[in-house]
């Protein structure tokens, strides 16, 4: 394996959970997660050689992951390579699984951009980082988050 390929593989392995989480929150089933995951890796690989560390690798990965999930239309590939996971976060009914499912249900009811913001907030990204990834000001991030909080409260009330 070439040096560049090794480096790419290492980055993917370091950030696999983050990418998987984004795919999960933007999909309806495990097959779609696998599709999106693969699509994100392809986009990362395409841009990897031109990545010049102007932003951090984590910001770059967030951008590619969110952009792919938001903008890729639903389509099946000729061949989807299965992911190495022994859980199905859409169907698991154990205690942990139910908690994860509840989180999914809450986030999935939000719009695409709101979903992205709350995901990054839950990942403990600073407002500056969220703003940098989305392309909006820190103040705007703050306003959007307050609105999301209200939406979540309304959702809980209506349940």
């Amino acid at each position, binding site marked *: 394996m070439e040096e560049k390929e090794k480096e790419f593989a290492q980055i*993917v392995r370091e950030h696999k959970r983050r990418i998987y989480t984004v795919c999960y929150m933007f999909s309806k089933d495990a097959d779609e997660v696998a599709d999106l995951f693969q699509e994100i890796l392809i986009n990362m690989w395409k841009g990897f050689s031109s990545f010049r560390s102007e932003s951090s690798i984590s910001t770059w990965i967030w951008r590619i992951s969110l952009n792919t999930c938001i903008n890729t239309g639903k389509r099946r590939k000729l061949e989807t*390579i*299965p992911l190495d996971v022994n859980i199905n976060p859409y169907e698991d009914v154990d205690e942990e699984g139910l908690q*994860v499912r509840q*989180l999914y249900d809450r986030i999935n009811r939000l719009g695409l951009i709101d979903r992205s913001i709350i995901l990054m907030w839950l990942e403990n*990204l600073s407002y500056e980082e969220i703003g*940098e990834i989305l392309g909006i000001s820190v103040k705007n991030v703050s306003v959007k988050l307050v609105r999301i909080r209200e939406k979540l409260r309304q959702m809980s009330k209506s349940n």
Partner: protein
Amino acid sequence: MEDNRLEMNCELEEMRQQFAIMKERFDRQEIVTDRLLRETQKKRINVFDWLNLYGPMAVIVMMTPLLFLCCQHYGLPVWVAVMAFLMGVLPVIWQYCERLKYREAFRFEGDVLQIAGCVRNFRRRSLKMTIVTGLVSVLVLSVGYAAWLPNVQLTDDPFRWILFILLFLGVIAAVVAVEIKSLRILDSIVKDLEQ
């Protein structure tokens, strides 16, 4: 956290806890396989993109000689075949040029909101192109049909007559169906953008 300073309500508090559980659960998974990495680096899946983009063009180019033969055999004006060919090829070329124009956006490396705007603009323009092409195609077919109609003798071959009427109605119905679907998609994109 100082940089992540949203005043939390109970929903957010609960979501933070659930997110921690999810992180732990997903962290235990291997997720990435060597095969997945290998295939990604080969970019083999891109074949699908090529089929998607150039498939219709290939079909149209292959159909052209057949179209000309039909015109000659059934007395249809040749310009109908030329127009049908152009109506098939031009949107594909146009889409290719548009993709070049939005190449940076399709690399998905820029700001999320900016890329979303670019991709939606691209899709909106593509849909408009589909609608315009569809309408022009119907117009061309109608005029071509009208021009051809007087040349056909009903007594010659009534089955041929019926076949052509059915074919014409089928084409019109298909175009109308595609237009309605396209308009619905366009509506949903506009709503999405407004949101």
